[in-house]
């Protein structure tokens, strides 16, 4: 019977290290943001009843009817509001994978593995373009 051997390479360990810390932070931010939001510890851009009264509408109709609800990067204009803080914590979850891929790309570069350095940074570029709204129909 063989003793367990760990076969993860340096790149995987670098990715896992960033992922673990970034995800833990993300979960804390998401929980805190939501508490601030639903207990209305800070002012809200849109009252919760108004959100609940219209959550059966299409997203486009919802934002047409409920002006001021946070979405996209425009939410940072109202960062002092509780609902916006909760929204920003969700945006953070969309950034975690990018941070991990940058770490992986740097680790691949150090190993002089040019194929995966290229794949890592092209993947990061795709995600950045999506986040910026270029590929994802942002405004």
């Amino acid at each position, binding site marked *: 019977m063989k003793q367990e051997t760990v076969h993860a390479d340096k790149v995987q360990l670098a990715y896992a290290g960033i992922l673990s810390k970034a995800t833990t932070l993300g979960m804390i931010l998401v929980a805190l943001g939501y508490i601030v939001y639903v207990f209305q510890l800070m002012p809200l851009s849109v009252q*919760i009843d108004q959100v609940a009264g219209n959550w059966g509408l299409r*997203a486009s109709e919802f934002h047409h009817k409920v002006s001021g609800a946070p979405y996209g990067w425009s939410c940072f204009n109202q960062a002092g509001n509780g609902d916006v803080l909760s929204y920003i914590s969700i945006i953070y979850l969309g950034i975690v994978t990018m941070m991990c891929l940058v770490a992986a790309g740097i680790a691949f570069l150090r190993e002089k593995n040019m194929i995966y350095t290229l794949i890592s940074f092209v993947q990061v570029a795709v995600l950045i373009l999506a986040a910026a*709204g270029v590929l994802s129909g942002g405004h």
Partner: protein
Amino acid sequence: MGLKNIKVGLLPGVLATLLFLMPQLAFAASATPVDTTAWWVWVLGLFVFTFLLGIVAVIAGVGGGVLYVPIVSSFFPFHIDFVRGTGLLVALAGALSAGPPLLRKGLANLKLAMSMSLIGSMSSIAGALVGLALPEKAIQMALGLTILGITVIMFLSKNSAYPQIEKPDALSKALQIHGIYYDEHLKQDVDWQIHRTPVGLLLFILIGFMAGMFGLGAGWANVPVFNLVLGAPLRVSVATSVFVLSINDTAAAWVYLHKGAVLPLIAVPSVAGMMLGTKIGAKLLTKVHTNVVRRVVIILLAVAGLRALLKGFGI
């Protein structure tokens, strides 16, 4: 023995009860716009529901996203746009928190995941854009058909724990996709390699598109493609699928964020409920009959798929 039987019967019982009760909830949902139920009742109900879903999902060996979207869109009053946006976040949060140990143990393979997700993430963005542009009925119809298709795949698919690959293909060699991991069942190292990489890439374009379009986590498709098409061992397939999912869902989630299809009021309790449920489910995994739960999930998916299809037809 008695306790075991109770546990075995508990989950299907809970699910059957939920199924039985749900038409009333659904009726309440379709009866809106004047919904007199307090918002916190729906939010609390969503948290409890996703918690149960998380338990069932992990025991049945499926991702939470694939159960979340069809069931929540059928039985809660939220528009399917918001449900799909949240479904991606549920799958993404689950993948992010499951990831580190899988990488550290060497079960997940980054090179395999990154090769497939580069093209998959682009198609998931396209899928999300198409999904948000299509009329609601068309989405419900397509979702219903897709979920019924997934039900058939789950019912028929027979995974292979250790596929034997005689010769890796040229592309997988160029992309350095191979590996070794310690198998706790065999108590020994397992070497693996893959073949049919170009076919896998084409399939991941399709999977990414569907994941983005419907807000489904795509473990149901990633794992069979890795395992049965490419020939990766089952454990490697399951673990690597998590990373493909985290990259593809991140890309598609940005589309939903930019289109305003994410409401924190719905998203956060869903993510929290699913993650807590998944942790409990993982602890129950060795104590319940996974086959029984899997059968119940297949039935649940079939019902949800059929219901989405009927909604698409306006029935």
